[in-house]
C-alpha cells in the first residue's frame, strides 16, 4: 500500500518516522524526516567531512620527511584515504540537500567545526604512529556504531570508512612498535608522541555525558548509539592494555585497573584546554584553517578554468 503523505499530519509523519527508526529501518534521502533530524545530520556529517579534510594536514606535514620509501608510500596512501573519506561524507551530506560549496564556505568562515584533535602539531615522525594508534583509534570507537546509524547514506559511508580507519590504526601502532624496539632516540620519540597525543585523544569523545546536550535526542534518532563517556571508557580500557606491548606509559598517574568496575579508572580531563581549542585557541587552529582557505582560494582559477573549458566544449558539441 502506498501512503499519500500529503494527507497526513506532521504528528502522523513523525510517528511513522520514529517507528521506522525503532524498527531499525533505514531512513533514505527521499523519505520524510523531521527538520531537526535533517539539520542535526547535516551538522554532524559535514563536521565529520571537514575533520577528514583538515585531518589530512597534520599527517601531510610528514610525507616529505618520511624515513623510508615504504613509510612514505603508506603515509601518502593514508592521507589520500582521508581525502576519500571526506568525499564520501560530502556526497552523503549532499543527499540531505547541503552542497559541497556551501559546506566548504561554512568551514572556511569558521561557522562549521571540525575535530579539535587536528589543531595539535605533528612535531616528530612518531606522531604519525601516535595519530594512527590513538586518533584513528578513537575515531573508530566513535564511528563503528555509526555504521548502524539510522540515515542510510551516512551508515553506508561509515562502513567503507571504518574499514580503512582500522587499517590506519594498525599501521600507526606498527610505526610505534618499530620505534619502541629501536634506538634510545627512537624510544624517546615514541614516548613523547604518546605523551602529547593521549589527552587530546581522550577528549575526542566530547564532553562528559552530563554536559552533552545533544546526546539524548541523537540516541532516540539512532544517529548516536553510545554516550561519550561509554565510548571513552572503552577507548581507555583498550589503550591501557595496548601500551604495555609498546613498553611505554600513558601520561596519567591515575590510570589504574578497577577490579570492581572491571574498567580502568583514569584522571580528570582538562576541559579548560578542550573548550579553548574548540574556541580557536589551540596550537594550530589558525594554521589549519588558513591552509584550507589558501588551497581553496589558490584553486579558484583552476576550478574556473575547468568550468569554462567544459562550457566551451558543450557549446562546440551543440554546434556540431
Amino acid at each position: 500500500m502506498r501512503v499519500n503523505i500529503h494527507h497526513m499530519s506532521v504528528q502522523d509523519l513523525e510517528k511513522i518516522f520514529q517507528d521506522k527508526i525503532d524498527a531499525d529501518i533505514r531512513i533514505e534521502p527521499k523519505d520524510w524526516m523531521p527538520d531537526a533530524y535533517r539539520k542535526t545530520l547535516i551538522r554532524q556529517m559535514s563536521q565529520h567531512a571537514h575533520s577528514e579534510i583538515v585531518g589530512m594536514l597534520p599527517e601531510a606535514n610528514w610525507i616529505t620527511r618520511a624515513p623510508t620509501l615504504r613509510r612514505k608510500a603508506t603515509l601518502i596512501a593514508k592521507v589520500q584515504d582521508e581525502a576519500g573519506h571526506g568525499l564520501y561524507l560530502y556526497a552523503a551530506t549532499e543527499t540531505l540537500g547541503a552542497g559541497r560549496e556551501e559546506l566548504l564556505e561554512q568551514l572556511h568562515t569558521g561557522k562549521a567545526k571540525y575535530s579539535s584533535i587536528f589543531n595539535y602539531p605533528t612535531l616528530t615522525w612518531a606522531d604519525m604512529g601516535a595519530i594512527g594508534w590513538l586518533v584513528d583509534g578513537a575515531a573508530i570507537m566513535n564511528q563503528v556504531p555509526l555504521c548502524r546509524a539510522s540515515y542510510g547514506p551516512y551508515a553506508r559511508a561509515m562502513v567503507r570508512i571504518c574499514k580503512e580507519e582500522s587499517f590506519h590504526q594498525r599501521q600507526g601502532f606498527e610505526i610505534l612498535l618499530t620505534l619502541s624496539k629501536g634506538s634510545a632516540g627512537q624510544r624517546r620519540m615514541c614516548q613523547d608522541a604518546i605523551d602529547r597525543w593521549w589527552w587530546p585523544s581522550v577528549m575526542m569523545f566530547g564532553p562528559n555525558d552530563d554536559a552533552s546536550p545533544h546526546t539524548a535526542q541523537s540516541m532516540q534518532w539512532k544517529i548516536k548509539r553510545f554516550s561519550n563517556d561509554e565510548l571513552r571508557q572503552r577507548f581507555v580500557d583498550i589503550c591501557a592494555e595496548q601500551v604495555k606491548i609498546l613498553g611505554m606509559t600513558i601520561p596519567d598517574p591515575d590510570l589504574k585497573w578497577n577490579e570492581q568496575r572491571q574498567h580502568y579508572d583514569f584522571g580528570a580531563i582538562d576541559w579548560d584546554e578542550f573548550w579553548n581549542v574548540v574556541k580557536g585557541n589551540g596550537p594550530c587552529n589558525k594554521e589549519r584553517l588558513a591552509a584550507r582557505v589558501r588551497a581553496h582560494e589558490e584553486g579558484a582559477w583552476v576550478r574556473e578554468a575547468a568550468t569554462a573549458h567544459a562550457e566551451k566544449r558543450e557549446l562546440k558539441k551543440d554546434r556540431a
Partner: protein
Amino acid sequence: MTHSTALIHYTLHLADDGLILGHRNSEWTGHGPILEQDIALSNIALDLIGQARNFYQYAAELINIGGLSGPSNISNPAMGPGLSDGPRSPVTEDQLAYLRDGWDFKNCLLVEQGNGDWAKTILRQFLFSAYQTTLYEKLAQSRDKTLAAIAAKSYKEGVYHLRWSSEWVIRLGDGTEESHTRMNNALDELWKFTGELHTAATYELETAAKAISPDLSTLQPLWKEKVKEVFDEAGITYPPSVWMQTGGKEGRHTEHLGYVLAEMQFLQRAYPGCEW
C-alpha cells in the same frame, strides 16, 4: 657475472626520476585545488614512488651481486659515509634513496623543479609522462629482463598519468585567460629542461649499445608529436628551440635538489642506522 656500472647507473637514473617527481607531487597532498584532483595527484605520486622502489631494489640487487669486485664508485657513495668501511652489509633501496648526496642523483632536471602553481605542476607531469610512456614502451623490450618487466608494468600507470595530465593541459590552456597565461608562464619556466629528456648520459650510450635501453634520439620525435598534439588542442604554441639545460642525469643539478634531499633524508641522517 658482474653487472656493468652503466646498468647500475641507468637503473638508478630511472629510480631517481620516479622518486623525485613523486616526492614533488606529494607536496600537494592535502593542498590541492579540488578534492578529487588532490586524490588524483597523490595517486600519481604513489605510482611514481612505487616504480622508483622497484628500480632501487633492482639497483641494490645489482650492487650486492657485484660484491667486493663491484664498481667502487657506486657502492661507496651509495652506502653513505661510515657504511662503506669495514664488513659490508647489503645495500638496500632506502640507502640508495636516503644516503646518497645530490651529485649521485641521476634524475632529470625537469622533475626536481619546484611545484609552482597548478599549471606548472600539471605541465611538468605532462612533459615527463609524454617522455616516460614512450620510454617504457620501448624499455619493455629491453634485453634486461628485470628492467623490461618493471617497464611493462609501469607503462600502464604512465598511460594514465599522461591522459590525466593531457586533459588538464587542455583544460587550462583552453579554459580562461588567466589559466592560459599561467600555462604559458609554466611553459616558459620548464621548456629549457625538456632537452635533457632525450640527451643521452654516458651510461645511457652504453646501455643503448647493449640493447638494454632504447636509443633516446628515436624517442624524441614521438615525444614531440604527442606534445604538439595536446598543445594544439590546448591552444598553446609549441615553443621554438631554445638553449637547453642539462646535467641532472650526470649528477649536476639545479639548486632545488639539495633542498628536496635535505628534507627527504633528514631522519635517516639525524638517526643513522635505525629501523623505521
